[in-house]
């Protein structure tokens, strides 16, 4: 099937991109593996709010879902995109096997991946990601197994802790890498989004109401347990996020929820070898973009958390701009109309910039976090590669991440480095004593997500397989 525009991802960024482009007259197809639009943040109610359907996220998500349903965007939910090729062709597996779509323009809005900086015991059952916990809370209203310790950094900490309390769970403690003063320092910028800041205050009060201890400037040292998490030991960190001297504290737990921010899921720009740059603040390697989301590859746009961790508000307007830009570039929107429709989004983006910066700073990986990972700790959990093995690979001559991968299998498993790639690259750069940029980026290849072969195969006869000419004898 041919379209004017393919949008990958139906979160705030992709959803709004598709709507803006369709409204301007483009024929648009939208792919997402979720059953409905909304992406991560608008998937369902945010944790910690009483009235079901009453949270701002739910309202925003419902509005997006309704707008998409009313639009003429061809909605392909429940499709896992595994291949994206030139000119652009997208292949996805869904209920009817493999399907594809083609269009001269493509907007990549595939969101972010969670980052967990490893510590001993992080791969034990009972340890779950902070972002993953938001999904559990949204879909099931629970996080399995109380008592829970919630640890890591960034705004999701308080939200998840409050959500667990509200769902009737016991939060034994909240462990925040940031100091209370870091939050206070961020307040002026956070106030540029009063509604969102109020949410944060709401969570904090909720946690306080349940008398949950909050350990600022602390981090998880290790999780203990045989077959699953039984206790977590935390300890103080310095302003850089590295382990500091001071007493350790032990909590008996059933579950540890832990996360250290998000990494932009920029696989599609990388797949097309678009110009990229490393920006620690934005979460890692991000495509070089103009103000409307054009990458260096003609016809390829990227927006949302996949181009830098900026949050849902920035994703919404970034998506809108990219959708308008695609329409403008296809001459369906003249310069004046483009300028007029884009102006409000540009204004809003400028307005939330301070807030986005403050949030991003709290979630960015701090080098000292990586240097605190003990040598025997597994970094790549798919392939069981420890920090020591990563450093030995550097001693054996590995100078960039893809060579590290060949030497150790780090990043070769099902997650393809989505989980460990950022920390592994940081460790390699630190060991070599070079800037992070110097160790390069993991080469992106299909499939974008693992796909069952059975889904790819479809029904076929042996005689239908197109067999090219055999090699000479």
């Amino acid at each position, binding site marked *: 099937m041919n379209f004017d525009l393919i949008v990958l991802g139906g979160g705030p960024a992709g959803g709004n991109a598709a709507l803006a482009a369709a409204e301007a007259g483009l024929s648009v197809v939208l792919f997402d593996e979720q059953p409905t639009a909304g992406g991560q943040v608008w998937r369902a109610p945010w944790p910690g709010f009483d009235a079901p359907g009453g949270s701002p996220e739910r309202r925003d998500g419902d509005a997006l879902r309704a707008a998409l349903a009313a639009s003429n965007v061809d909605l392909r939910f429940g499709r896992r995109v595994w291949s994206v090729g030139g000119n652009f062709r997208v292949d996805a597996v869904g209920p009817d096997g493999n399907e594809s779509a083609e269009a001269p323009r493509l907007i990549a809005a595939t969101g972010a991946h969670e980052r967990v900086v490893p510590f001993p015991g992080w791969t034990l059952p009972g340890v779950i990601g902070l972002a993953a916990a938001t999904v559990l809370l949204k879909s099931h209203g629970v996080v399995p197994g109380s008592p829970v310790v919630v640890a890591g950094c960034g705004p999701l900490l308080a939200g998840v802790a409050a959500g667990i309390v509200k769902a009737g769970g016991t939060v034994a403690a909240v462990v925040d890498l940031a100091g209370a003063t870091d939050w206070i320092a961020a307040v002026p910028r956070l106030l540029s989004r009063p509604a969102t800041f109020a949410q944060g205050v709401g969570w904090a009060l909720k946690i306080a109401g349940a008398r949950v201890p909050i350990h600022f400037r602390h981090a998880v040292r290790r999780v203990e347990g045989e077959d699953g998490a039984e206790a977590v030991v935390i300890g103080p960190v310095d302003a850089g996020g590295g382990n500091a001297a001071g007493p350790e504290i032990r909590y008996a737990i059933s579950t540890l929820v832990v996360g250290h921010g998000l990494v932009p899921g920029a696989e599609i720009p990388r797949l097309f070898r678009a110009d990229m740059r490393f920006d620690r603040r934005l979460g890692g390697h991000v495509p070089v973009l103009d103000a409307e989301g054009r990458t260096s590859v003609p016809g390829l746009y990227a927006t949302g958390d996949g181009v830098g961790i900026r949050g849902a508000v920035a994703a919404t307007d970034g998506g809108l701009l990219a959708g308008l830009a695609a329409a403008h570039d296809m001459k369906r929107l003249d310069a004046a109309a483009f300028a007029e429709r884009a102006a409000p989004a540009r204004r809003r983006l400028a307005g939330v910039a301070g807030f986005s910066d403050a949030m991003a700073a709290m979630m960015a990986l701090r080098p000292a976090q990586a240097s605190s990972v003990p040598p025997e700790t597994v970094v790549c959990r798919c392939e069981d590669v420890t920090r020591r093995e990563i450093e030995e690979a550097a001693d054996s001559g590995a100078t960039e991440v893809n060579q590290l991968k060949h030497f150790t299998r780090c990043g070769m498993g099902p997650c393809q480095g989505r989980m460990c790639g950022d920390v592994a690259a940081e460790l390699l750069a630190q060991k070599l004593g070079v800037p992070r940029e110097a160790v390069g980026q993991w080469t992106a290849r299909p499939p974008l997500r693992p796909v069952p*072969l059975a889904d790819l195969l479809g029904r076929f006869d042996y005689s239908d397989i197109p067999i090219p000419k*055999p090699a000479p004898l």
Partner: protein
Amino acid sequence: MTHVHDLAVVGGGVHGATAALFCARGGMDVALLDRGPLCREASGVNAGTLTMQMTRVALIPYAMKAHAMWASAPQWLGHDVGVVVCDGLSLAFTEQEAEILTFRAGKRREAGAPISIIDGKAAKRIEPGISDEVLIAGHCEVDGYANAYLTGLAYRNALLGAGVSLHENRRVDGVDVGDGGFTLSTPQGPLRARRLLLAGGVWIEPMLAWLGVSLPIKTLVNQLAVTERVAPVMRTVVGIASGLLSLKQYAHGTVVIGGGWQALGDRERGGVELVPERLVGNMRLACHAIPALAGARLARAWAGLEAETRDALPAAGPVPGVPDAYVCGSVHSGYTSGPYIARLLADRILGSEPEMPLFPIDRLLRPEAPEGTDA
């Protein structure tokens, strides 16, 4: 004033690295230059199949020697590249394939590969994982595979151990001939040597052009794919009569699926894009051969560049008209045979007669004969 090496090798794939290793062990002062890390092109991304059943007939005697070399890699290379020696099966599902297989296996047997034709039942005893629809199979006990991504690490250790001056991430941009030697220009400054070996994989064409020699090299862009770890589904190397499938399961459980299906790309840009229909075709063929494979998930696919000369035989020998310059590459199934052919060339560079003939490129430099008349 500047140091003059006995030999400069340009290109650190399996050909250049092996030749450098044996020349250094033979007493030469060798420099090896690669524009990237060692073995990160074809030699580090290939399927690692060490099989006679995909090897060109003319290369079988070399491949047999090379197989023995790989099997004893810990002795001469000193480092493990995960070589497993096992049975290999080449399957035929249709009468037409059975005919091709019987003919091709016969030719390869005449050339020295111990391949026998067995029926479907016998094949199933050797490889319980194969489909019931196999009519006949070529069976060869001289088969197996390596873990190609370990090649760079293994050679790196071996080369340093042998005293080779290793220059990774040092691209060569051109060569000047004169003063009884060669001056290689690189962004990090010139490097001088008395002898020169060009071992640049698909890039031997532009490299030979530095010396004014025009040797057309076709670039094949091969697709490969790997599954997540799965419980054992097979224990042998499995291919099909046409040669367009190669399958094996590594000890850690992943299955590598290849067979030379073509991706998009070229010498300038590399293997830039996989072709989804061809991946699906390759997966269908794989699951047709090993049905239980359909339960696995595809984890990654990639593409690499393989060189082919006009007659699909190697370019391995002296460079005509340029004393002390050599070329080595474009060996079909070159991961299997590369180390042996490069070692033969190392013998020649060291001044002794190789135990089997090389493949001088003079034959390829004649003006192209009309199709079909080329001997």
